Each structure stands twice: as C-alpha cells, then as structure tokens.
C-alpha cells in the first residue's frame, strides 16, 4: 500500500508538471498584457511594472524561474491584479471559505442522496421511488444557477427565511450549500439506487434472506457496501466538481471564496493567480482520487492496490 501511494504521488507530480506547462503555454498565448488591460499607463511605467513582475524576461526564462520558485517552496508568486497580495495569501483566505461550503454541500448531498437512493431501490416501483427519482432527475437536469435563482426567489424574497447573500453566519451558508449540493444529491441518489438494485439481485442477498436476517440487516449489512462502490468512485470527481460549481454559487450569493478568482484570473490574465488555482485544483483532484481508491480497497476486500 505504501508503494501504491508513492507511485500515485509520482504520477501526481508528473501530471502537475504537464498541467503547469500546458497552462503556461495557454496563458502566454492569450494576446494582450495583464498590465495594460484596463487602464492606460505610460510605456515607462509599464516597463517598470513588467520588470517588477519579471514579464520582460524571455518566456523560457520565465517558465523555469516560475517552476523553480514553485517547486521547492510552494511559493506561487504575487498576484498581478490584486494589489499587495501574494497568490498564497489569496488562496489561504478563499480556500477555507470554498472548502467549508463544499464540505457542507457534499455532506448534504450524501445524506440526502444515499437515503433517497436506498429507499427508492428497496421500495422499487412505489410512489416514493417514482417521486424521488423524478425530483432527482430534475436536480440533474437543472443548471446550478437556475436552482439558485428559484431558491432565492422562493426563500429570500417571497418567504424571507434567509438573507440574500454574504458570509459569516450560519444562515448565510444554508442556501448556497443547498444549491451547490442539489445536483450531487440527485446524482448520488440515482447512483445509489442503481447500485442497490444491482446488489439486491445478487445471489448472496438471497442467501442472506435465507439465513433469516431481517430486511433491514440485509440491506445495511449485506447490500449497502456493494451499492456504495459506484458512489465512492463518483465522489472523487464530484469533489472537484463542487469546487467549480461553487464558481456559480459563490458569484450569485456573494461568497468570498475562490470561485470568483477562478474566472477573473483567467479573464484578466493574472498569470500567477490562475496558475496557482490550476495547480491547487489538480492537486486536490489527485488527492481526492487517491483517497477514493484507498477507500475502495477498504470497502472491497477483493481490490488489490498496485
């Protein structure tokens, strides 16, 4: 298992390097300069600024310099657009916000999705099954921001239970977490249902019933584990998805997370910030997938890590 983790981390470093290179090339091939985008500055000042951010160097030199700065220290450099902030500081501020929103959304998605999925599968064909799966399909079929819009109209304006936006209080986080988690809850519900139905048709479930176990025991002890496997492998990409989904939700609810920076950095050619966010995202995705694989091995004794 140790060897497995080391190998995966090796792949991660390789991927990070590829991502770094691709992003570097892509960003630098966007015409225009980050410094002249909005306000006109005199050529002199622009030169000075360029020197300060080392943008006057040849691209090859910039590539290696950035890499050498990032690799040993994890120092992502200074933001070009957000004055007096380093990329590390921006991430340190925004990440906890996005992460707590994301974790709450996922927790909500898991609770709701698993419950609905299990009930649907066990009561297959019932009214409960039908209505829950209909709601789940709607959840999958609606874009995040439409859900957010409807929820805001309903619970902020028509029936003012929650504040429209902001950050810091519990009441601030509930609506965004719901909007962010809803599609995932829907997806998890469907995955759980399919997985559960699959498992329930297995011979060993019949064996379990033949042993005299109650339906509850059979489902929770014998069936759930197998049914969870597809959900677990979905969670890796889902966590990454929650991050990008929060792009929308954070924008609508005015939450000071990383989401806003994601788009702005790319649009305003804030090279260091964009690069930092890309690398953060890739690392996160990799670590999550690693965790998923590890938990897979824990859940299913037949899986050997290699």
């Amino acid at each position: 298992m140790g060897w497995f983790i080391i190998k995966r981390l090796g792949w991660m470093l390789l991927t990070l390097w590829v991502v770094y290179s691709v992003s570097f090339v892509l960003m630098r091939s966007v015409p225009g300069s980050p410094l002249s985008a909005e306000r006109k500055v005199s050529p002199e000042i622009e030169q000075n600024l360029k020197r300060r951010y080392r943008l006057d160097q040849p691209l090859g030199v910039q590539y290696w310099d950035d890499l050498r700065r990032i690799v040993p220290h994890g120092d992502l450099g200074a933001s070009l657009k957000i004055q007096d902030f380093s990329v590390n500081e921006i991430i340190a501020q925004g990440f906890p916000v996005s992460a707590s929103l994301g974790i709450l959304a996922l927790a909500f998605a898991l609770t709701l999705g698993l419950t609905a999925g299990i009930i649907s599968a066990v009561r297959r064909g019932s009214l409960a099954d039908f209505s829950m799966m209909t709601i789940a399909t709607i959840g999958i079929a609606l874009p995040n921001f439409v859900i957010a819009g409807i929820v805001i109209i309903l619970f902020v304006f028509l029936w003012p239970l929650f504040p429209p936006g902001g950050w810091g209080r519990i009441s601030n986080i509930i609506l965004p977490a719901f909007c962010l988690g809803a599609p995932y809850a829907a997806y998890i519900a469907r995955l759980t249902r399919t997985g559960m139905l699959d498992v329930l048709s297995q011979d060993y479930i019949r064996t379990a019933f033949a042993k005299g176990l109650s339906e509850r025991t059979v489902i929770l002890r014998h069936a759930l584990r197998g049914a969870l496997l597809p959900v677990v492998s979905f969670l890796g990409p889902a966590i990454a998805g929650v991050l990008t989904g929060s792009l929308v939700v954070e924008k609508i609810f005015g939450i000071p997370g990383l989401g806003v920076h994601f788009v702005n950095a790319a649009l305003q050619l804030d090279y260091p910030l964009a690069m930092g966010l890309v690398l953060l995202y890739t690392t996160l995705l990799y670590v999550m997938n690693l965790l998923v694989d590890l938990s897979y091995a824990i859940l299913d004794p037949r899986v050997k890590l290699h």
Partner: protein
Amino acid sequence: MTETEQPPALPSTQSAELQRYERLLAEAEQIQGISLWRDAWRRLRKNRVAMISLGYLIVLSLLAVLTPLLPLQPPRQQITKLAFQAPTASPLFIREYKIAENEPAENPDEPLPTQAKIDADGFGPLNWFDRSLLAARRAIFGEWCFNSICGRDRLGRDLFARLFWGARVSLLVGLVATLVALVIGVSYGAIAGYLGGRVDNVMMRIVDVMYSIPFIFVVIFIISILNTEDVKALMAKWGIDRLTVFFLVVGAIFWLTMARVVRGQVVSLRNEQFVEAARVIGASRRRIIFRHVVPNLLSVVIVYLTLTIPQVMLFEAFLSFLGLGVERPDVSWGLLANEGVEVITPVRTVWWMVVYPGLALAMTLFALNFLGDGLRDALDPRMKNR
C-alpha cells in the same frame, strides 16, 4: 455410360440418421432469432417514459427547425415600454407590434423579405432557408402571433419567441459538440483498444493525465483568446464563428470519457467468447467486425450520446452564466436563464425569466436522460427479462 444417373442408395441406418438430422434442422429453423435492434426497439417501446421522452424530443427538434414558420413575435424586437411585462395569455393571439414608423414598402417582385426588412422587424440575420420559412409564415398567419404567454424581458422582448429561437442554438450546441466528442472519442478509444499493449497503455495514460487538467480553465483560456479583437478579425476572415469554435472546444473536452468507454468495450469484445466462437467457425474479419463488434459498440455509443448531450447543454448554460457562452444577440436557453438570474432583485420578482428557460432546459434534459436510461435498459442484454 448407359447407366442412368441414380443416387447411391443409402444404407438404412444412414438414412435414419439423415432423417434425424433433417428433423433437427427443421426444428432449428422454427426457433426464431430476434435481432438485437428489433429486440431493443420492442423493449424500448414498452418503456412509456422513454417513449414519451422520445416523442417530446422529436417534436421539440421539429419545432426548433421550423421556428420561423411559427406565429411568434420577433425575438429581437425591443418594446421598452412593455419591459418586464408579466406572462399574459389573453388574448392568446395579437398582431405584431410595429415600431418602424415608415416601413419599407413591400416589393411585390421580391419573393422573400429582404434582410433589411427582417432586421427592422427584429428577427436578426437569417439564412435563405429561414427566410423562406418566414415568408411562408407571413403568408399563412399574416401578422398574427402569440401573445407574450411567457412574459417579456428587460428590453421588452417576448420570452416565448426567444425560447424557441434559443432552442435552436441550445439543441444545435448539444448535438454538434457531442458529435465532435463522439468522433474523437470513438476513434481514439477504438484505436487504443484495438492495438492494445504498450500503445494502449500510453494512450490511456495520456487520457488519465488530461482528466486531471481542470478543463474549465482550458475553456476559459481558449474562449478569452477568441474574444480578443485580433483573433476575432482573423476568424471572421476564415469564416469561422464563435459557435463553431465552441463546438470544437466542448467536443475536445467531452471526448475523454467516450474514449475510455469505447476502449473498455473494444478490449472486452476482443476477449469475448462469442467473437472467439465466430472466429472458430471461420467468420471473416469483416464479418466479425460488422456483425459482432460494431453492434455491441454502437449500443454503448448511442447510450453515451444521449447522456452526453445533456451534459454539454448544461456546460453551455454554465459558460453562458460566466458570459463565455453564446454571444448576444444570439440566444440560448442557458443565456436566457442567466438573464433571468441577473434581474433578480428584492424590488420585483421577474420569476418568469428564470422559470421558463429553466423549465425548457429541465424538460429537455429530463427527456434526454430518460431516453438514455431507457436505451441503456433496452440495449443491455443483461437487463433482459428483469
């Protein structure tokens, strides 16, 4: 030479044997094989939800293609005094609003309305096909059109008409981008799976690495490149519009999963016993590929196709939200929904601008998802008789 041609008489035991085999043969002929597709279609037809979805999608596509023929208000006609008008269905039909004071005189020699006239009417640039549909519509319905049953937007444009015109873009984006992904993914996956060994390994590792690149960024980068004036001018010279590029970019992202799925299927098919069996009884390579491999691959691809279109449409909506999707004054459902979200204020609830585009998107994606599920159940032989 004089001997008459006569079949040699069979010994009696042999003839009994022969009869036995004839009997077996006759019996075998009575057993009717049902082809995969007929069988699948039979099962799909029994799936009510999937059939309703299929019907809905067919009707929707027809309506989208024939939109200019429908009695709708001009989608770009701005009537500022009616901004944010709530949905109204009484009367159901109204005459088109005229804003231009002095309309260009109708030229009886011109069979189709001129572009200038169309622009003035608020339809936007139309190609020949759409213009003839529009002419036909004028002939059939005159100036009568549906009232604003879905309300009006910030500029007083009719949402109902815009939903139909948006359907054209949304469906086109979903379909074409998915097809692009399909072509790339199927070729890549099939090649990797077919060649196998080291090549397969390397090709799939590349896919793995690409999976962990945050593609949202890639898209944002590419689209920002395309948004700059120089590139726009360059593209205009080559006759490429943003929509085309959008197809390519989105297709280039969604091919990854397709490649994995197809590759897996090809690899498993190569080792499948029925392929082995076909080879053993001497079926030609061609026959194996077309009788055994392609149908099995096709079913996976079709299912994946119906499940990817909704994803692409959602992605288009997401990009529209970021202002990177379809360019105004073109409309798509995503763009319309986003316009709705933008005008949400505590002062007035313009609910129809969120609800109707959302409903249009949801119903279509709903149908696509159900159809995809139905197809999967119908085509997956393991689901048989369940």
